[in-house]
């Protein structure tokens, strides 16, 4: 049933940010997700909110979490990396298509 769920709100933002980071040289984890959102939206949720969102998405099977290799510096640490699962990809697609349909031709956009 989870696969048919429409994600929305902060979770949707996080899913989108993870998808954007795919194919860049930056892996998707707390800080990069926050940076990506800050860059695109002008403001970003707190790290705590992002972690809570990641936890919820993982509970629903929309993302998978894995450990990175430790960073190659002294005292370097492992990061918890996120990637979309097929269900997550489907949910993101469904949500964005839905939103695009919803926003298409909004008078407020035409007027600006």
């Amino acid at each position, binding site marked *: 049933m989870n696969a048919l769920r429409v994600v929305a709100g902060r979770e949707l933002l996080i899913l989108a940010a993870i998808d954007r980071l795919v194919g860049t040289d930056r892996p998707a*984890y*707390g800080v990069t997700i926050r940076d990506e959102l800050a860059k695109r939206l002008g403001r970003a949720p*707190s*790290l*705590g909110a992002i*972690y809570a969102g990641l*936890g*919820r998405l993982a509970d629903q099977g929309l993302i998978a979490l894995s450990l990175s290799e430790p960073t190659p510096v002294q005292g370097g*640490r492992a990061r*918890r990396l996120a990637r979309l699962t097929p269900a997550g990809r489907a949910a993101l697609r469904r949500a964005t298509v839905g939103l695009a349909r919803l926003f298409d031709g909004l008078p407020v956009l035409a007027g600006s």
Partner: protein
Amino acid sequence: MRRRPPAMAESLLRAVAPPDDAAFIAGDMLELFTRTLEVAGPRAARRQYWIAVLQALPHLLARRFERSESSMFVDLADDVRFAFRLAQRTPVATAAILLTMILAVASVTSVFSVVDAVLLRPLPFANSERVVELRSTYQGGEPLTNLAYPDLQDYRVMVPAFEALSAVTENVATLTGAGEPRQFTTVQVDSAYQDVMAARVERGRFFAPADFAVSAPNVVVLGNGYWRHELGASPSVVGSTMVLNEEPHLVIGVLGPSDFQYPQPGAELYLPLRIYPGTMMVNRGAMWVGAVARLRPGTLLASARAQLASVAGVLERRNPGDAGLSATILPLREAVGGSVGGMMALLSLAVGAVLAIACLNIANLLLGLSQARSRELAVRAALGGSAFRVRRQLLTESLVLAAVGGGIALALAPALTRALLAAYPGSLPRAAEVGMSPRVIMAGVTVSLAMALFVSLPLLRRTGRGNVPGRLRSGWREGRSAAERRFGDLLVASQVAVSLAVVAAAVLMVRTVVRLSSIDPGYDPRGAISFRLYASAVRFPGSSGAARFYDQVLAGIRTIPGVRGATTITQVPFSGSFGDVFVREDVGDQGQANPHTQIVGVSAGFERVLGLPLRAGRSFEVIDGADSSAPVVVIDETLARRAFRGTDPVGKLIAWQGRQHWRVVGVVGLSRSDALYDEPPPHLYFSTKQIPRRGLYVVVRTSPRPQTLLPELRAIVRSVDPEVAITNVETFDDALGHSIAPHRFRAWLTGVMAAVAFLLAILGIYAVVAYGVARQARETGIRMALGEDQASVRRRVVVMALRVAAAGVLAGLAISLVSARWLGAFLVGVSPYSAGTLAAVAAAMLAVTGLAAAIPAARASRTDPAVALRAD
């Protein structure tokens, strides 16, 4: 500035974050910190780190909660469901536990609601903790409630700790001109009273200095309750007139609503206290007035007390009339509740005992139940249930019991409180404030929870111990370990101990009541009724007028069929007393050694009305009232014995009340007028025709039940003066009953508690013995197979029970002896160390233990060895 994130913020983050995420989120935070550090410097970086952590907290907490729901809360629901299923499986035991719990929690809650309102809660007006009552002390003795007015005036000026001080005194007034004449308690106060009691004026004004002038017009201020309930909150009351004691009083104001009336509940007519120069009011040494004061903010009670004592010392040196006098203060809350402190302590102790016994009993029952579940618990452990998980299950079961039992108890508590207040003898100060306040509900909930925790402690201690496979195999038939058995025995012995102490106390209280009821008061209480009248100074002026009023009333009453006699009397039994000294003229003034006696005014034939035998001489006769008659008195045999030892008092002359040559004309039987248990006090009777009084009681002796004649009595009084109020109507039987009512109440209370304690103890003994017998069925079977006969089996079981009970009895006797001194305050004519009572109660306890053990013992003796050994 350090180049590290703030340590405190970091540990806060790690503490709050879900354990799996903590390391990663801390790492990410550190990464952000390092970045900000390079861009904006350490200060900004640290500040942003704090902000980020604080922003993260709600999200992390919410996340944690979501997660835990999936394990902890689901399990909890399971535990609760299981607890209910278990309760259905053992309905009798569960009902017993619930009943015990309800009984204990309801009684604790309702007693606490009373004690809290009467003793603990601050009085219901602004800054009431700063208000104190003044008490005088004489030569370091017990504080007396009254002071001398000139001393009070000096305290008002000379003690800096007092912000305001008001004299307070009570009186009674008859209200006429508004339907039936009625009597009210009035309070005479200073203008400072308003400041001391923080009394708001709702309408009109309070007293001004001019109202206190001796010649000022009469004014009255009404309490809010009186105005609301008696006058229907009439808006036009200020400016109207009330007739009090036949004098019109102008109503000048109404006080704001208040739950508290001082000096006593229901005193709601305030009059200005007027001081008449040249009367005893202004004598130092005439202790007639009470006082309340408000302390300045921040003043300690001790320092105010010290200031007052030093001022009193100055006054004592300055005025010879103040020799030996000093003064002290008491917080008003204690002064008001103090008179019932002993009774409240007894109540608290009684419910404490019930609570203790209930806890022990429930713990015992739960322990028994859990042993029957030994196999189930073992299965849980074998299937991987951690000790923690099993303990939580057990605790949940107790908590469910506590929630159900506590809930029912809290619902029942108000009714129980009402019953307690109704049964309480006399009036309880601040009774109007008693109710289910949040504090009381909190107390009830706390007691329930504490009980749940306490009763499951032995269980919790036990779980997770012992070998699981062994318990699995043998199930509940396995013998208990020595430690378990000792613990069960300890519970039962404690129960026996507490019950014995409570039962012994109850027996002593009941013996007190029996003893008081059997004391001869001297007079005959059957068929006698009394009421109080006040002769109008307008319609019956002068002292002869008062005498004429009572003559007419008595003459009228004597014509009523069924009336056997009637007399006036200055005080009826238990209505207070008046004492004085006199001088025997044949031996002269003896100074300190002059005889002291109770003084009672009566009319002719009083001894027949009261039922006192005439021992010598004669009583008053109608002729004694005549203007020219010689002054005569009658004494009772107690006074004859004390003051006229060895001589015939009849014909002797005494000087009394500034008058010479009172002749003793007769001696009547003794009477205990004020307290049944005391040595009878001496009495001197004078005739109310020779010293007339306006306010007097009338005693009527009747052949039918005296209450049935009340309408006729009222009609007679009204025919003499339609404006006079009949008050304080009471039969002598009731007055006697009321005088021992506190004792009856205590006996009743401890009796109920004792019955409960006794019953629970017997149940406890029975349960433990029956349970032990069932557990040892195999052992018994083996013994019987080896040749033990039935009688010996029975004996062994009973002796085992008796041994436990005997330990409890010894402990209970110790408790009784330790508390005896305190208990003595509630006993009359019965020693708290009464060996007979204690021995009888101890014997009864052991006998009942034997009986309670006999049933399971008989069952044990019928064990069929073959069956017992085959089982399993």
